[in-house]
């Protein structure tokens, strides 16, 4: 019998938080597993949905931006260029919206059982990450179809995957914690996601943005992340705009740190508010 001593006091939850998080580490996996299992129950094509949605979006974007708007593609097949950006963008937007709603949709658990609350939004991000990996298959398929050979840049891709993960988690933590108290954010989330798609270089290359606006454009952290993805996947065909990427990176770090901090600060009151 482990005789650990637990002390409950106002403002004391901090002390065993990180050890608890470690003790409950399997719950990250279980909650993500639950969401994935549940999502494709009673669907006919099941997991294929994870492939179909990004594939169709890619087709529409290629049609609109390449065939109709005749935008340049930096010398690579337009579908590949679109998909290299669609991957991180869809991961970010899915993770952001599901993490944002995660606490509210699990309110029952929050008011009846103890566990570190951080697990809920994190596992929502993990679920979107798994979708991201699955839709990565389409990218491989496109590259084979067009006979496109990636360069050594591809080795750097994990770094950018890590960055987009951090961006999604940071923004998700902020919105999840705010959503518990101010339900207005429930309406802000879909708006941000829709708006973000237009202000991020998903359907087009960021090289069409005039040079003097590039740095300002990079205030949107997803610009740097998407440029990084394109650079890693398309090789030398995509430019690497250092100032923009560094600015985006710094913003991602700030959002993640402040998000975690805000979440931890408000977490104690979740059960009373939700």
């Amino acid at each position: 019998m482990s005789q650990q001593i637990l002390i409950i006091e106002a403002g004391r939850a901090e002390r065993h938080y990180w050890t608890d998080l470690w003790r409950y580490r399997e719950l990250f996996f279980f909650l993500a597993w639950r969401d994935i299992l549940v999502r494709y129950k009673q669907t006919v094509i099941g997991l294929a949905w994870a492939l179909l949605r990004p594939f169709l979006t890619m087709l529409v974007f290629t049609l609109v931006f390449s065939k109709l708007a005749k935008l340049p593609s930096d010398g690579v097949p337009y579908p590949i260029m679109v998909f290299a950006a669609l991957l991180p963008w869809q991961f970010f937007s899915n993770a952001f919206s599901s993490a944002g709603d995660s606490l509210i949709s699990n309110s029952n658990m929050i008011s009846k059982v103890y566990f570190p609350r951080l697990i809920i939004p994190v596992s929502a991000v993990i679920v979107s990450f798994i979708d991201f990996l699955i839709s990565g298959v389409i990218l491989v398929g496109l590259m084979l179809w067009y006979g496109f050979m990636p360069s050594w840049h591809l080795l750097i891709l994990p770094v950018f995957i890590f960055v987009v993960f951090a961006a999604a988690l940071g923004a998700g933590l902020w919105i999840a914690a705010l959503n518990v108290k101010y339900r207005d954010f429930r309406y802000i989330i879909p708006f941000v996601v829709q708006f973000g798609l237009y202000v991020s270089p998903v359907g087009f290359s960021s090289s069409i943005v005039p040079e003097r606006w590039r740095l300002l454009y990079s205030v949107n952290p997803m610009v740097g992340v998407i440029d990084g993805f394109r650079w890693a996947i398309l090789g030398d065909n995509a430019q690497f705009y250092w100032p923009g990427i560094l600015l985006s990176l710094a913003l991602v770090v700030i959002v993640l740190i402040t998000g975690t901090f805000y979440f931890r600060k408000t977490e104690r009151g979740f059960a009373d508010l939700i």
Partner: protein
Amino acid sequence: MTTVISVQNLGKKYILNHQPQERYTALRDVMANSAKKLAHKLRYPLAIAENDATHEEFWALNNVSFDIKQGDRVGIIGGNGAGKSTLLKILSRITEPTAGRVKIKGRVASLLEVGTGFHPELTGRENIYLNGAILGMSKADIKNRFDDIVAFAEVERFLDTPVKRYSSGMYVRLAFSVAAHLEPEVLIVDEVLAVGDAQFQKKCLGKMHDVGLEGRTVLFVSHNMTALKGLCDKAIWLKSGSVVQEGSAEDVVSSYLQNGMAIKVRQVWDSPETAPGDKSIRLHSVKVTYEGDEVSKVIDVSTSLNMEFVFWNYVAGAQLNFSIVLYNNQDVCIFNSVSEAKSYPLGKVIGVCQIPKNFLNDATYRLRLLIVKDKSTALIDLDNVVTFEVHDIERTGAWYGKWIGAVRPTLSWTTFSQS
């Protein structure tokens, strides 16, 4: 015996909003209010922030202290809003206390609700793993105890069926079973026996009893006093957030029940002017009397009760009849009993209606009294004139579940063998 849970001066404060609004805050209101406050500050920089009249502090728990020893099975009793759930929520770390300190030795598992985290779309097997993980079990632990959990819940055949197709009994059994196999040092259980059938209640109580015998500590909240006395050796009585009494379950439960009795077994209107009625009659009093009421003996199933009412009659010659309607706490009408129509002389009139013993079930009842003139006009129709509670009697045998039925009459039985 060592102290496992030590609670010192525990308090929990909630802020009540008096504005009619939703449970959550809208950002719009916060921004509007902050702007108002800022404007106020700018105009009167020296004013002290006034106390917001729309907010009121409410202490759900106030200065609660007690100690619980290892292996104790402690019942927590009290009316609605006494702070029982808040106490359990603090002990299971769902919410933080505002004041005070709790020291707990060992792992705590709490079952505040049946099947928290169960997902209706997942199968029984999947839910066991998920629920176990939510309650803090590792995958290896769950695997080891999987067979025990399934056997206890008696759901072997339905393991791969989504739990949304389960009967509510199966659902409850599975949920309780997962929590009971957590093998915590402290098990906290809130009113979960209200659901599930009698046989399963018995099984749960038995399991909690065993948990206690293994040297683990059990905290149990229930409104079912018979079950509570059967399971717990100690009890704590909470009222309006404070401890009223703690001690042996037997003592605490009986003083709690007696206290609950005093509520409204009688109502008296001293002056005819303010009493219900009109110019022809005025009500004077309504009360429930029974043998032993002077010594505030508790009403139980085997008590015979008199519904007694007194009124002033101002009109001679009118044909009056009386009607007593009894409702239980589920608002089910138990009966409507009507007296013969008669005329009465001027002055005070007393009426008594007797409810025989071994007729009512254990529940809280409320009385509605009607006085009708000439079989057509209701002079008085008063609902909720008195309320009283009928308690369960000490039963033989180990079953403590709620006795079903609106009434619980002793009927005559004949059994014989045909030869």
